[in-house]
């Protein structure tokens, strides 16, 4: 929240300011409504959810209990959560392990043609998933990797690597050159420079990068459902198992959806300012 008002508005200007502020609030409330409604529905009984929209009801946690305790399909919530956590964390760590040295070679001691390399990385992000899914599926089948965590770890690393390189470079460029040179004179090699100077200074930027990788990996559905449709699958796939063709399911689906979205939404809310930069891909400040 922004407390201090920089420009003291007078007379007519103040009313315009109030009006625009009010308009922003109304817009936000309308825009946010589907999320609010989803959370509300998750605390309803199926009977209250599957009727003409109503705001008053007896709130209950039963839907959360149902979706976490019973497995609608082959995949239980616990399994999906474990898969997601392992896949997302391991792939993000690999991304950082690959991207931090690469960003060093693009920002701090730039290789020749660093601009071309940077653009190569980002151009791989522009290659549509359909262009590679069929060979990857064939390969995963040949290597018996379908329905394993490993295949998604590798693919999510590939998805996030270009973005991480791009973002980390933009954070590394801002590190004062003198600090790195000082470490260099002290005889620090790459590893020493990284641990003593670069990582501490760029820590917030690295955290923002890691967070964005986590968000994209957590939300990914296409690879997860194509390559791991059954037991090796992740939370987004589990959400879809809560849709049933028989009987009412909206309240249960809402509870499952809230559970699936909470980690990323909370993380995104906390880090939104840094993410603004991240999403602008570091090229824009």
């Amino acid at each position, binding site marked *: 929240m922004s407390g201090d008002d920089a420009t003291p508005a007078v007379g007519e200007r103040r009313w315009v300011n109030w009006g625009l502020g009010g308009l922003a609030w109304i817009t936000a409330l309308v825009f946010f409504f589907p999320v609010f409604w989803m959370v509300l529905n998750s605390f309803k009984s199926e009977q209250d959810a599957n009727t*003409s929209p109503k705001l008053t009801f007896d709130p209950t946690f039963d839907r959360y209990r149902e979706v976490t305790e019973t497995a609608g399909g082959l995949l239980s919530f616990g399994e999906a959560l474990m898969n997601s956590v392992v896949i997302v964390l391991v792939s993000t760590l690999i991304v950082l392990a690959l991207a931090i040295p690469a960003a060093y070679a693009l920002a701090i001691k*730039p290789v020749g043609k660093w601009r071309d390399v940077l653009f190569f990385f980002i151009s791989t992000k522009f290659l*549509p998933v359909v*262009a590679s899914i069929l060979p990857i599926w064939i390969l995963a089948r040949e290597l018996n990797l379908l329905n394993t965590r490993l295949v998604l770890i590798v693919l999510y690393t590939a998805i996030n690597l270009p973005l991480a390189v791009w973002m980390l470079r933009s954070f590394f460029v801002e590190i004062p050159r003198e600090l790195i040179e000082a470490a260099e004179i002290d005889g620090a*090699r790459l590893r020493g420079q990284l641990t003593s100077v670069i990582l501490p200074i760029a820590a917030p930027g690295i955290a923002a990068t890691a967070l964005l990788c986590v968000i994209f990996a957590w939300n990914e559905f296409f690879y997860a459902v194509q390559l791991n449709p059954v037991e090796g699958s992740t939370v987004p796939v589990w959400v879809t198992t809560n849709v049933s063709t028989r009987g009412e399911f909206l309240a249960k689906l*809402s509870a499952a959806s809230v559970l699936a979205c909470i980690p990323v939404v909370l993380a995104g809310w906390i880090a939104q300012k840094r993410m603004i930069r991240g999403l602008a891909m570091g090229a824009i400040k």
Partner: protein
Amino acid sequence: MSTTLRPRVGRVIPPRTGRSPLSDSWRRRLPLLPALLFAILLTQVPFVLSVYYSFTDWTVVPPGPREFVGLDNYRELFRDEAFGDAIVTSIQLTVFPVIAALVLGTAFAVLLDRKFFGRGVVRTMLITPFLLVPVVIGLIWKNQMFHGLYGVVNWVIERLGGTPVEFVSEHPTLSIIITLVWQWTPFMMLIMLAGLQSQPSDVIEAAKVDGAAPFAIFRQLTLSHLRPYMELGILLGAIYLIQVYDQIAVMTGGGPGSTNVPYYVFQRSIGGGWQFGLASAYSIVVVIASIILATFALRVLSRLLKGEAAA
């Protein structure tokens, strides 16, 4: 590291004898190589394989031989009416959401680019849809907003005196477009907000002192400053939206008006068709469209990057 001055960094310097085995330029490249190799292995190699598949006739289930057929798959592509429909749907599902999200996102960014009570909360609410799992976005819009009997949108329509609409089955394209606009507006808003906040304030102040009307300032100064950001938003949005899959899968599961090209590729291959050769040829079309978009996107990015270097 060497302490001697090198005339030019980054050029391939012939290896010298009597020094460390790695020349300076290779030492610089070394940290880059793992990431570079990984990216090439996971993106370029499968792509080349896809191109190769696209020249073959290959049914995977039941397993059949892979025969080289040259351009037959690409000829088939022109005869396939369903593929034509998928292209039209792809264009609709890309162009309309990008434009609508950009317009809304710009409007939201302008509203947010001033100080008012609770601005942080408002921004938080506005970015939330972009953080949601896309599958969840599709499912909650279908089942709680668009539902024919209990949907909130239909409730509003009825209060306004209209008749309820079965959105997803009657207007599949529009339904998916609305969810995509909802998902992508925050992304556009963030990019435009970054643009607005990078605007030099002294120019605006000078225009105000000269007595320019707020709207004229917005149109003549702000919009021209925002142009590269708009271009970036359009291109990045288009590149992602051209390959939308999640919403289609959970809202309609494909069908007239909602099967875009990537979904069609999936239907003809892993989704049950198992014709990997033909499907690969179809996927190459998406790649070509993306390459065209990406070429422009990279040009815009490059311009912004040069601006950063100059600043």
